């Protein structure tokens, strides 16, 4: 089963870099949750930073695309996001409308460019 797991070192890194730093906040919420006001100023800042980090991840995939996405020209990836956003807004914030239109633009555009 080496192909399925790959190397165990990578799995150990997953726990140190991914599982523990993520899980710690849930467990802190479980332990100390009682006394914290959900609308406190600190949590407003935390939420804003978390949202901006998420935005950064989105931008990273579109600006520095991995693997097969790198074969799609920059302008086409940006157009797909823009078209998806227009559809999302027109469809009164339907997530799926945005995703479908963005996908159609990327795939049709890439197909057309050859």
């Amino acid at each position: 089963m080496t192909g399925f797991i790959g190397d165990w070192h990578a799995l150990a890194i997953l726990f140190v870099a991914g599982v523990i730093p993520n899980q710690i906040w849930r467990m802190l919420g479980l332990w100390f949750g009682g006394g914290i006001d959900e609308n406190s100023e600190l949590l407003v800042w935390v939420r804003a930073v978390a949202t901006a980090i998420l935005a950064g991840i989105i931008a990273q995939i579109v600006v520095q695309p991995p693997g097969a996405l790198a074969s799609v020209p920059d302008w086409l990836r940006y157009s797909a996001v823009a078209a998806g956003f227009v559809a999302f807004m027109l469809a009164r914030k339907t997530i799926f409308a945005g995703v479908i239109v963005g996908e159609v633009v990327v795939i049709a555009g890439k197909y057309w460019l050859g």
Partner: protein
Amino acid sequence: MALPPLDSPQWQTSFRAFLWGARSIGATVLTLVLFATYLGIGALAHDSGFSLGWTLASTAFVWAGPAQIIVITTLGSGATVLQSAIAVTVSAIRLFPMVVSVLPLMRTEQTKRRHLILVAHLTAVTLWVECYRFLPQVPRNRRIAFIHGLGLGLVSVCLIANTIGYALAANLTPLLAAGMLMLTPLAFLFSTARNCRELADVIALVLGLLLFPLAAMLNSGVDILVSGVAAGTIAYAVHRARAGIVRARA
């Protein structure tokens, strides 16, 4: 799908409540969004050189889309373990207020902290949203079982999506593989945009998108962290300034 009324015998056992929770994954479009996201994560992990087992373990044990994508993209592009861990932990802070706000919905006088560990683990943005929608229709003493069913049902859907995405990325034409990798940013962008409640959230989202390419020029290895903290702090400052103006006028 409608849940049985609160006084129905359907709620007499925890096991039945668990099954009703698991069935409720069919009653929300967010399941489809999650499916698309995890299809994309499977493809992303494949193209970044991780094994399928590693990908499934990250879904089961991390269970937070953004954190998983950070681990995959940072480690895949050569960041150190410490740099990844810092970016992940900052992105995960948002789970703290979610857990804090969700647990009181299902606590009873008999509930011990250890009964809530799995609920805390399953808490992520989708479950958090669905708790507010479903739990009023579930008797309080069956809510933990219901959420276990709903949460584990969602995890299962995502494990299947990961496997399909991973396999497809290995076998699809470059055209469709590119389309699959695009699912992740699109699904995240629009689900985040939908969750924006206040001006601070909108500014954080827009600035976060715009500042990343600038931060990337620093090549610090923690570019996401630099742009995220900067954009989030500016958004918070605008929120404070506005609150100050409103108070000054009043």
